[in-house]
């Protein structure tokens, strides 16, 4: 691959890589180790964590901050919520993306439709939070509703719902925002994959009498399955880190707390715990990474 005549000394290559290498070491490698180190210290990063143990209470020694990250009630709610997001929102988003990708393929105004659905990607999460807070707004008393959803409910003579503070719906309300934001992303990638399926195979199937459902489920889906997996794992990783939406819409109140928000809230008040939460976050993403690498390698082998 490399033209043999272009050999050069080690130092030339080093100089080209140096700026990037330096920055990466300084801004990614060093802080990561430091975060781990801080997770074993107390709230100001000075004394070791076991100094924060209280008399008569449970104590995990140097892992005291991890005890907080895993057993504290607020964290438990956060962990549960992230799991809920992963189990509900991710499949729904991927399926939505797949559905829209496939349907859009069949209409003439496909580029317009796809652009509209993809558009939320260009909006900041904060902006999306403002948009949807407005949709979910509830007006108390007898004043007219100005939020879209409650406006519709009231028009049908139902009671308005406090989407953001009502614990039985608020997590799902937030998930809807997530789907709105990410379905376009999944759709774009899956659409490219769908279009990459060889036309001859599809034609042959149709000639053999398969209807559209069979073509989609029995032929296209299995072929693009690796891409579906990549999209799903990417989404899982994004959702584990989800922060901005929850922060700007509910700030984690009313039972909507998520891991990254907990970490943010604690950064200044209790650094040790905040860092432990960050480490837990990374640990949670490791299985997904390993899965990704495993699949990647499997494919490289199959090539």
């Amino acid at each position, binding site marked *: 691959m490399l*033209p043999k005549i272009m050999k050069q000394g*080690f130092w030339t290559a080093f100089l080209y890589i140096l700026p990037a290498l330096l920055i990466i070491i300084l801004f990614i490698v060093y802080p990561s180790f430091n975060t781990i180190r801080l997770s074993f210290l107390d709230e100001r990063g000075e004394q070791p964590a076991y100094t924060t143990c209280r008399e008569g209470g449970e104590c995990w020694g140097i892992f005291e901050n991890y005890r907080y990250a895993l057993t504290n009630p607020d964290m438990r709610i956060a962990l549960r919520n992230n799991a809920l997001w992963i189990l509900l929102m991710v499949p729904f988003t991927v399926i939505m993306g797949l559905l829209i990708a496939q349907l859009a393929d069949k209409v003439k105004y496909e580029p317009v439709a796809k652009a509209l659905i993809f558009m939320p990607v260009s909006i900041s999460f904060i902006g999306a939070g403002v948009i949807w807070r407005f949709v979910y707004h509830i007006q108390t008393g007898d004043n*007219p509703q100005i939020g879209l959803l409650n406006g519709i409910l009231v028009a049908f003579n139902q009671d308005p719902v406090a989407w953001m503070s009502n614990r039985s719906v608020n997590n799902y309300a937030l998930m809807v925002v997530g789907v709105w934001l990410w379905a376009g992303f999944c759709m774009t990638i899956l659409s490219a994959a769908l279009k990459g399926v060889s036309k001859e195979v599809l034609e042959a199937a149709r000639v053999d009498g398969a209807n559209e459902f069979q073509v989609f489920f029995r032929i296209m889906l299995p072929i693009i399955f690796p891409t579906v997996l990549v999209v799903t794992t990417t989404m899982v990783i994004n959702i584990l880190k989800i922060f901005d939406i929850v922060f700007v819409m509910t700030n984690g109140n009313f039972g909507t707390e998520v891991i990254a928000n907990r970490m943010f809230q604690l950064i200044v008040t209790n650094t040790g715990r905040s860092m432990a939460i960050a480490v837990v976050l990374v640990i949670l993403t490791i299985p997904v990474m390993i899965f990704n690498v495993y699949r990647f390698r499997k494919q490289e082998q199959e090539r």
Partner: protein
Amino acid sequence: MKPFSRLNKIFKKLPVNLAIIIMCVMWVIPTLGLFVTSFRDRREVRNSGWWTVFGIGVEEVESGVEPYQEYCASCHGDDGRGVEGVDLFSEETIQNYPRANRLFIYLREPIEGEPHVRDPQLPENPSDALEIINPIYNYLTEVEEEKGWLNRFSFSNYADALVGYKGTETYLQDCQENPDQTRYDCNVLSDLTKPGGMGRAFINTLLVTIPATLLPILFAAFAAYAFAWLDFKGRQWLFAILVGLQIIPLQMTLVPIARLYVSLGMQDTFLGIWLFHTGFGLPYAIYLMRNFIGSLPKELFESAYIDGASHWSSFWKIALPLATPAIASLGIFQFIWVWNDFLVATIFLPTSPVLTVQITNLIDPRGQNWHILTGAAFLSFIVPMAVFFGFQRYFVRGMLAGSIKG
């Protein structure tokens, strides 16, 4: 073509078209609501949903005519001017009662010893009374001399947002009525760049985003060239490690860097945030650039070398110009990412807030200022949306670069 076969075709495609159209509508409506609201007068924002601009749900307003006739018209007349010196439909009158319950409290006060509303009287029970007052109130606030959707269209929300207005009226109104009040200069240029407003935040965002986009591209291009076309020991595994670092989330690197900056006196500086974004974006950038530069035909470089070019000149004259598509994709991706970022900006640049941070600063916990928030939100969308729609192709390409497998 037979007449029915055309119809048949349309009919067959109907479910698909319907499904797609419904989904597109559902996707656009939330943003549309915000957009429409950003142009509405702030009192209307508080009192009626944005869909009434299109005439939906306006029956609520018209249903106020009857109670008005029943309770108010006997003294105030049909046009609201029956009582000397009082015009019920004028703006000054309505301004005194931002909500229907205020009006209700006022109406409870007797006038000259007699109840205000006397013939018939308002029910004693407050919620029954409010049921009557609400439609009347809506009627009073909505009806005007020249009604029409152009009527209450205003840019005042945007003006308020740009300036970071925190008063009770609107910025434009304040400047018109009391030009001597000291909080705003009422001079376009100096007010647009006032620290608390979106105008200033816009400038800050530009100052953050542009270098934070250019720097990673530059450094990644150098490194990518080396990984693609220079041979040195350990090139494979070093590349694998650098690219693998993509997995490390922001949360792992935030705090130590922030602490480092504080100890170096660099906290809250632009340089600090540029470097942070560069560091975070490099692994992906190197991956993207290397794949592209590596796919350029080797004959190009070979012939350059034979002609006596050094690595430096073949980098600048061959690799970089030909890598423009990758640079475009990377640039747009990074630009939108940095522009929309909130977490990094709020921690590393708290006193020169960028657009996203400024929006959170403008949020009024009492929920009274939707009109400003909508304008502010849209101000933050304009640029990334424009970039997105204009360069969608490159954006998608950048995204797909790592994702298509199989």
